[in-house]
């Protein structure tokens, strides 16, 4: 009964008057869904050929982007220092040294020198291995003896010495450092590039 009343009330011009009855949940009246109800919109029908065309276009666009990305990935960032200056390429003939052709004797001597150098290096390497072996053996023996004397001392001996890391050692130089040498203030130009 009330539903019909409210439905008609929309037609009425005097809305204020009509709203005098309540639709709160206490009365368990539910009017809105029906009031707001309206017929569904009719779905537009698109030609399946056009849909296909659109999808194709989308796919092609994506493929193109991917191709462009792949192409760029292969292209590395240029390193200026690695590029041979054009002037060097142009003046290649002028810049090559006029060298006399190597005689067979010189070639032979060089080959022999290379061989004897290889032999020498092998000997040096083996010598190094032997030394390392010997020193390790000496240490193992010392540790073994220490362990035999006292387990406690042995345990203390195999602890890592934290003072040794990081270690700083100045290597041998060609000539010894000059005592009390004051190095002159040099000038330098910073040529490192700034990348923004």
């Amino acid at each position: 009964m009330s539903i019909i009343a409210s439905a008609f009330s929309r037609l009425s011009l005097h809305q204020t008057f009509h709203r005098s009855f309540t639709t709160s949940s206490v009365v368990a009246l539910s009017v809105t869904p029906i009031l707001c109800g309206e017929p569904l919109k009719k779905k537009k029908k698109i030609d399946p050929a056009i849909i296909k065309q659109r999808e194709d276009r989308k796919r092609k666009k994506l493929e193109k982007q991917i191709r462009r990305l792949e192409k760029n990935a292969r292209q590395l960032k240029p390193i200026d220092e690695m590029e041979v200056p054009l002037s060097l390429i142009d003046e290649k003939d002028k810049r090559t040294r006029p060298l006399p052709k190597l005689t067979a004797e010189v070639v032979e001597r060089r080959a022999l020198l290379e061989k004897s150098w290889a032999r020498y290096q092998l000997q040096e390497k083996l010598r190094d291995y032997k030394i390392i072996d010997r020193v390790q053996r000496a240490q193992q023996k010392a540790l073994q003896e220490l362990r035999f004397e006292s387990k406690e001392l042995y345990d203390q001996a195999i602890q890592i010495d934290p003072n040794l890391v990081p270690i700083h050692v100045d290597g041998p130089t060609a000539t010894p450092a000059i005592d009390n040498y004051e190095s002159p203030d040099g000038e330098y130009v910073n040529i490192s590039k700034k990348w923004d």
Partner: protein
Amino acid sequence: MLKRAVKTFLSHSTSHRVKCAATNAATIDQSNNKWDLYAGVLVERLPVITKSLNKIEQEYLDHLKQLEFEQSSKSDFEMRDEKDKLIAQLSQKGKHDDVDTALQQTAQDLKDAWKDELHQFQLGPRTTEADHKNDVKSTNRKLEETLFLLVEQRLGEEKVMLLPQGKRVNGETMRQTAERVLKENCGDDIDVMFYGNAPCGFYKWKYPSAIRGETVGAKLFFYRASHKKGNVIEKETHFQWLDKVELEEKLPKEYAQSVSQFLL
């Protein structure tokens, strides 16, 4: 050659194993005896300058330099030098008479100036005063070699040159003993860096039966240390800095054998 090397390596390792087994057996046999524990310190003064090249190294170095020269192309400076020389030649003949070029600094002038500058600079000498005087107390001798510190030690009645050593007292680790021993033998001036807590070598000797007390002998554990700065305070002890060859001559024979096991 390689075969031979492998063979020697193998024979080394087997003999090593046998030796280890032998020492194990020996130590077990003596398990009832008590030994004094000693710590010794091998102080090395590492090489300050690079080793002189031997014959083949020198030859190969020259060879590499020659190859480098042959394979390189002319630098900008060389090009300029050649150009300057050409101009000079032309102007001598009177064909190219230009005041500007005559006044300009040529590449040759620059080269000469740089050479002068280099000659004026005095490099540190590779042989020092201590070498000329053969002063074995200086750490500044034989810069190419590793030097080792020997200190006079009293063994019973006699005095022998040995690595600084001393007896461990209760409550010390071997490393602490080594540090203390070095201080006691050489004073506070010398500054060294110990290489870790583990000993690097070992030597033992038995006391003569006349003076043998509770202990049969001494076991000496060597610690390796590298010299940083300072020297032994001279009043306190007699000492020497020797290279490997001199060291092995100076030390008592058996002792030298043990020490040479862990010399590099």
